[in-house]
């Protein structure tokens, strides 16, 4: 990194700066990999029995691996040790990681990967650090897409400004014994009652319905969920109550790879 002092990366309360400074973590000129890059690709190779090459089978992205390295600068040995401890504190568990890079604010979910390093170069003032983050879900998320909360049988117009399939989370409120949600190529059929105190949250990424943080069994009777490919506006997205009334809120982020 060079030039302006930008907060390139945030994990928890810790900031990794671009540019230069005198206290904290700074990212090297070539010390930020895997963020702009696409993740590695995997494919299931099936060779042709009696011909050149292999079958044209579908390819997928592997988890995203982000590598961050640079210098940690401090005014004293105690301060340097403080930064070291802070680094290994924020690298615990699954983290939401915010990036601010090339004019885009995006976030990923990831965990530490490999061996994080913190090696003192000049005792009391300078250390070199390096760590990797593995994002099991390789997607990067941007701004939340503005959507409107709609009533029964009212269709929503959905689009996003990312470059990859975006999975919406659906929040259903109201009073209904059962209902359906119609998406672009599937329909959720829900056999569980919604009440004002038990709204439903349906995660299209995992196909799980949550009710106050719990997952009630036998609530989804059919449907496999859907995602929104980029660059298109979808007009079919609505709540259809079997009886009663309710609203549908769609939570969706610009989704990138």
């Amino acid at each position, binding site marked *: 990194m060079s030039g302006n002092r930008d907060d390139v990366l945030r994990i928890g309360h810790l900031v990794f700066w671009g540019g230069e400074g005198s206290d904290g973590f700074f990212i090297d000129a070539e010390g930020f990999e895997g963020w702009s890059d696409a993740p590695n690709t995997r494919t*299931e190779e*099936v060779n*042709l*029995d009696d*011909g*050149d090459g292999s*079958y*044209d*089978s*579908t390819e997928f992205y592997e988890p995203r691996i982000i590598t961050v390295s640079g210098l940690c600068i401090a005014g004293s040995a105690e301060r340097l040790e403080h930064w070291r401890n802070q680094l290994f504190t924020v690298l615990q568990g699954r983290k939401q990681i915010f990036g601010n890079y090339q004019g885009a604010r995006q976030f990923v979910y990831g965990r530490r990967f490999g061996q994080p390093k913190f090696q003192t170069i000049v005792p009391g003032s300078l250390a070199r650090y390096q760590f990797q983050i593995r994002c099991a879900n390789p997607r990067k998320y941007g701004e939340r897409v503005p959507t409107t909360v709609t009533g029964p049988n009212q269709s929503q117009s959905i689009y996003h400004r990312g470059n990859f399939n975006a999975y919406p989370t659906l929040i259903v409120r109201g009073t209904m014994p059962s209902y359906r949600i119609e998406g672009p190529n*599937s329909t959720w*059929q829900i*056999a569980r009652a919604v009440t004002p105190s038990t709204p439903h949250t349906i995660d299209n990424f*995992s*196909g*799980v319905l*949550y009710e106050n943080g*719990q*997952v009630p*069994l*036998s609530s*989804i*009777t*059919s*449907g*496999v969920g859907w995602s929104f490919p980029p660059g298109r506006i979808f007009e079919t997205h609505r709540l259809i109550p079997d009886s009663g009334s309710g609203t549908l809120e769609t939570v969706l982020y610009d989704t990138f790879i």
Partner: protein
Amino acid sequence: MWTYFIHETTTGIRRQQVKVTGGSFSTRMSDIGSGEHELVVADSGLNRAQWLELVHPWANTLVQCWNGRPVYAGLLQGYKVNRKTRTISVRHKELRLLLNRRFPFRVGTRLQEGHWIVRDKSLRGVITELVRVGLARPDGGDGWNVPLGIPAGSEAGNSGTTLFNWDFTTIENGIAEVEDRDGGPDVHFDPRYVGAGQLEWELKIGNPRIGGLQFDYVMNVAEPRLFDVTSEADGTEMLTGVFTIGKGSEKDMRVGEAGLVQLPVRPKPIPFLDSSRPYKEVKDIPELNGHGIAELKRHGAPTVQWEMKTLTTGDVGADQLRLGSRIRQRYEGDWWEGTRTIDHYLIGMRGTHEFPLVLETQELEGL
């Protein structure tokens, strides 16, 4: 895309979509297929009690779908919790296994002198009635019946069967006996979704083969849609004559037979191969002879079994191929097959959580 669901066995209602890290299944006509899957517990949002409810043996059925359509459904048989990988691996078997555990009577309703009889039906009709008493009784109540797509009546004809209460013949053995008769139909329970996403098993009874759509495959092209094709001939079970041993013992034992008097010369004569087969529940000599003829037809020549792979992502997805489908292979100038068309009958499928699907077929010619 493969997706996986757990359904309640007796109602067919979907309980939960689950994620798997690995798994395999096999389904086979007139047989009991099985499988095993590793379910991901981490991040499922379900607690321990809910998981234990979901993996409870027999109560639940795992369904593997391609593009939302069931390809395989297995009744859970057991599970193994792996603390290290945070997964639960479940074992399961196809619905027909349940017929192994069903008699025509239930505990508390059996009379020693009684019997269950069906007559004046076709072989297909007899099987329909057997399945009805095993899985879809009008007086079945909760826990006996499973959701079945089964015809309302049953086909008339001049066959029948009797299951005596003192014999403890299971419904499965009753069905297998009818399948083994001369002209006995193939039987398959094909899983499908009906109504609001309920699982149901469609009872398919052949005539004698189960009907199905035909899929054409041109084999001698650069990228054939079928690959890893093998054909295997097995003569272990071959017969030239057979005695079918029926009811009774010693001198009073009923015995049927069927056999060749002269040996077929193809391309060299094979030696005489006689065998005996038990049909202990049968007392009618003509029926025993019929079983003998059926055995002879089945085992007069080596069994030729084909296996081939296809990619589920191809033009014909795993959801379209059903047991009973016809697979037509067209060879032209092939190093082994020359130029000919081979019609196959799809009798089995094996798959994993990945794309290649193994098809097991029999040549239709001469069958």
